């Protein structure tokens, strides 16, 4: 027991023993602990304080989803004919054992929903391989904001307004379709184009990847909703048609101003861009008409979007200040106005307004953006005019 090593070990043992007994006797006194301790609280309260683990990546079962409508089937057939191939789908209702199913030449079945008389819904089979590919791309590219389960609440999605889409709510804002749900092409266009002024970027992904992601996103609809609901309408992007104001843009802007503040009553939610004193003259209304207070500010509106179970409110944009999400050309604006923004206070105006009025509105809004946005001096002039005499 005389070697230095042994002595050292003995010393260490004694030291440990002493320290341990001190500790056991609470010799060092109680911990100087603060009254409030955030450390555990934060960790447990925040839904995304913990890193994700064990995320399933493989989908073993395919699913039936609403096909993007009869048009899609005709389109597919035409495409095939153009390439000199046999059309993929038969249009013979007596096919498939007389059940009236639509069968493609590879045995690909388009079911017909015949629960109700005269009601047709076309279904599309999405196989597990494609869903798995889509799932993986979704997890890799989309999940940081939209969440690993597509619940719109990924780690980067928290605190984010406007909040990322929860795909289980099957509600899409900027798809520019009249029906409830967009076609695949509309969704693909949106992903490729992105939404200005938000972290939804234009995605540099290949067509194939985006197709897979779109199929996966569709498959996130709960049973009986969205793409699993036979009754929802699926439509393609609103056709802009012929521009009635071509060559007369200045008149369009003038007319648009009237429509904006008059027929369409846009200023009920969006700001008005004319001083309330001048409005009666512009709209041929009685001098004593009363407009809403603070007409130069937009009004916060309810929406159908939920974040963590709570409905969020959405502020209609002030075109001279906020960034327009989905394009600033008259064409883009026409599409947005005509189709409305799903789930928000913005209705689809197509049908309610004439084509001329719609185009005029688009020109007017574009003019507002061009004239005032990011131009502090001009905007200051405008705001002074608007607030005059208030």
């Amino acid at each position, binding site marked *: 027991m005389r070697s230095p090593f042994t002595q050292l070990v003995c010393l260490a043992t004694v030291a440990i023993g002493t320290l341990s007994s001190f500790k056991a006797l609470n010799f060092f006194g109680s911990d100087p602990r603060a009254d409030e301790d955030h450390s555990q609280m934060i960790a447990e309260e925040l839904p995304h304080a913990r890193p994700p683990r064990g995320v399933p990546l493989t989908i073993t079962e395919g699913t039936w989803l609403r096909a993007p409508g009869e048009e899609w089937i005709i389109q597919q057939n035409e495409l095939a004919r153009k390439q000199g191939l046999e059309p993929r789908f038969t249009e013979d209702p007596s096919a498939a054992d007389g059940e009236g199913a639509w069968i493609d030449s590879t045995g690909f079945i388009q079911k017909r929903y015949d629960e109700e008389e005269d009601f047709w819904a076309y279904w599309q089979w999405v196989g597990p391989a494609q869903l798995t590919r889509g799932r993986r791309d979704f997890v890799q590219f989309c999940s940081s904001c939209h969440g690993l389960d597509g619940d719109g609440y990924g780690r*980067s999605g928290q605190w984010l307004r406007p909040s990322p889409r929860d795909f289980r709510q099957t509600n899409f804002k900027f798809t520019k379709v009249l029906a409830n749900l967009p076609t695949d092409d509309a969704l693909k266009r949106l992903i490729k184009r992105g939404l200005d002024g938000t972290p939804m970027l234009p995605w540099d992904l290949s067509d194939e990847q985006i197709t897979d992601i779109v199929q996966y996103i569709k498959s996130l609809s709960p049973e009986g909703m969205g793409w699993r609901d036979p009754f929802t309408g699926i439509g393609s992007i609103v056709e802009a048609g012929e521009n009635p104001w071509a060559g007369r843009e200045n008149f369009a802007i003038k007319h648009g101003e009237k429509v904006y503040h008059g027929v369409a009553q846009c200023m009920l939610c969006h700001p008005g861009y004319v001083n309330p004193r001048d409005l009666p003259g512009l709209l041929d209304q009685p001098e004593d008409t009363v407009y809403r207070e603070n007409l130069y500010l937009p009004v916060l509106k309810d929406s159908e979007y939920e974040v963590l179970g709570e409905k969020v409110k959405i502020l209609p944009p002030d075109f001279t200040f906020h960034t327009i999400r989905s394009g600033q050309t008259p064409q883009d604006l026409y599409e947005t106005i005509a189709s409305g923004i799903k789930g928000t206070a913005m209705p689809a105006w197509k049908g309610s307004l004439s084509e001329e009025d719609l185009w005029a509105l688009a020109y007017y809004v574009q003019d507002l953006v061009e004239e005032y946005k990011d131009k502090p001096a001009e905007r200051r002039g405008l705001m002074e005019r608007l607030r005059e005499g208030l």
Partner: protein
Amino acid sequence: MNRINSLLAGVLSSRWMKALAVVGMAGVAEAQGGNRWAPFPPASDFGHRFSELFWLITILCSISMVIVVLLLLIPLLRDRARPGHKANYDHGSSLHDKRLTAVISLATFIVLDAWVLAIAMKDLREAYWNMPEVDQAETYPIEVLGQQWAWHFRGPGLDGEFGTPDDILEMNQLTIPKGRPVSFQMTSKDVIHSLFLPEMRTKKDVNPGSINKTWFKPIEAGEFTILCAELCGYAHYQMFGNLTVMEQEDFDEWEESASLLGIAAYDPEDEEAQWAWEWEE
């Protein structure tokens, strides 16, 4: 030494530098038809310090490099192996050689490194790390929240306090007044980002879990660039924004509008949207 220092510093910061800058930036840029070989001119009050130090180091390094190349070339041309030619037998271990080694390396160190070091220290103390006090009325504070792949900026609004309804929220766009120090506190939701303002000659990492601070004082109004300089994943290259520096009067009007729109957008029930933190002094 002090005189030489001030003399050279004077030369570097004055006409000489400007001439160089003209050749280096505008001249080449024009000649290349919009293609540039240099950064845009600085727009912050300490931006010129970068260029001065950069060109000082460049001149010193160029001299050193020329010496090295000469010392490579001369033996290459003069001392090539040929019949009858013999190398000089020299271990370089005499006292003289040792002294020479020490003198030359120390001299190089003093001329090259110590000089640069002294200027850099001065710059750091006077500019980069000389954070303005926020309670000074003129300092404009900004809270930055980085995320994959966007920048969120929160201005205090009219009441000058964070976490109130009139806060100004911007995304990928930052609007600040000219001629006032702008003070940043920054953090990130998810991964590390880095706020890079090339025209302001400043950069600071935006780390999750802690708050980082930086500042600068814009001295020119206009539109500038915000980039992310730290790899942050898939769309790192798309994480850029726009910095608008406004004249004070334009800014006042803008701040009022933005603040009012902030109030209009304020939803007291939506606590999630209020991510501001208390400004750290």
